[in-house]
């Protein structure tokens, strides 16, 4: 399973590429080739345990206050 925040983009405003490249929806930046192995859960990697960006993001989401119903 790949990271839900992984996208593949061919351009990012200023930059345009011949091929799509891995892009992190959390940091809103392209990621390095080595990092993409973690985003894609390739080999022995798991984004949930190995990616600090994913972990921090999920923790922040969990800490966000929930609106009261009343």
């Amino acid at each position, binding site marked *: 399973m790949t990271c839900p925040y992984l996208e*593949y983009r061919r351009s*990012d405003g200023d*930059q345009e*590429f011949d*091929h*799509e*490249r*891995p892009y992190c929806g959390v940091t809103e930046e*392209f990621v*390095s*080739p*080595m*990092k*993409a*192995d*973690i985003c894609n859960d390739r*080999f*022995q*990697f798991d984004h949930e*345990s*190995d*990616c*600090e960006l994913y972990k921090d993001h999920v923790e922040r989401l969990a800490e966000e206050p929930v609106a009261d119903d009343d």
Partner: protein
Amino acid sequence: MSYQHYLDQRKLILTVATTGGVHGKDANPNLPEQPDEIARQVRECEKLGAAIVHVHGRDERGENDPERLQAVNDAIREECDDIVIQNTTGGQSPYENRVAGIRTDPPPEMASLDMGPFNRGQHIITEHTRHNIESLAREMKEKGVKPELEVFNNGHLNETYRLIEKDILDPPYYINVILGPGTFTIPTPENLLNMVNNLPEESHFNVLATGPHQLPLTTMGAILGGHVRVGMEDNLYYDRGEPAQSNAQLVERSVEIIERMGRDLATPDEARDILGIE
């Protein structure tokens, strides 16, 4: 090797590391990734005096792919005259990917051999056990592949001695002293000097330093009688805030400095003689 070797004007081996596995074109669009564009840049560097090329494979999206090593090797052989090909067995890959670097057809004349793990990110340590290192070294020996021993820190130098004591390596030992961030050796002139002072007998050393340390510490390595590696794998900038235009731009500057210091560059064949590559 020593300062005396510099005074004696021993030949210097220049290695170019064009691509690596860390950066993509998003970091510098001039970084070559595909076999043909890597080979074209290698050819330019060979013409300038590079004797060895350190090779990584990428897929068409620019992500690491050891299966592309064969295509990159083929493209370099097609484009270049005689440069020594040194495939990677490094990075964070599992063993199957590491060993792909010495199972191309034909095998490369050289391959990198990390002397231990190092950290990447908050949760990753590159998996590189003593068992794996020894397995790679033994297969390299069987195939006549000369290992470049990647010494990322002092502890990795201990591991180099360990392999020598176990008679797994053949002299002369070619040791790449690596300075940079994270678990690499802290990049200072004093630390480079310390590493060089602790090298085994019968060894040659090469200096790899990342980013802004590439130019000053490789120059210092040349003065200490060592060899030099430059290229966009280790450094994406020509100057502060100025992205490198090509690998050749970095090689050209180093060649100029090395020659002005009075050292001659080794041709690929001379590099083979120095390193005992048959």
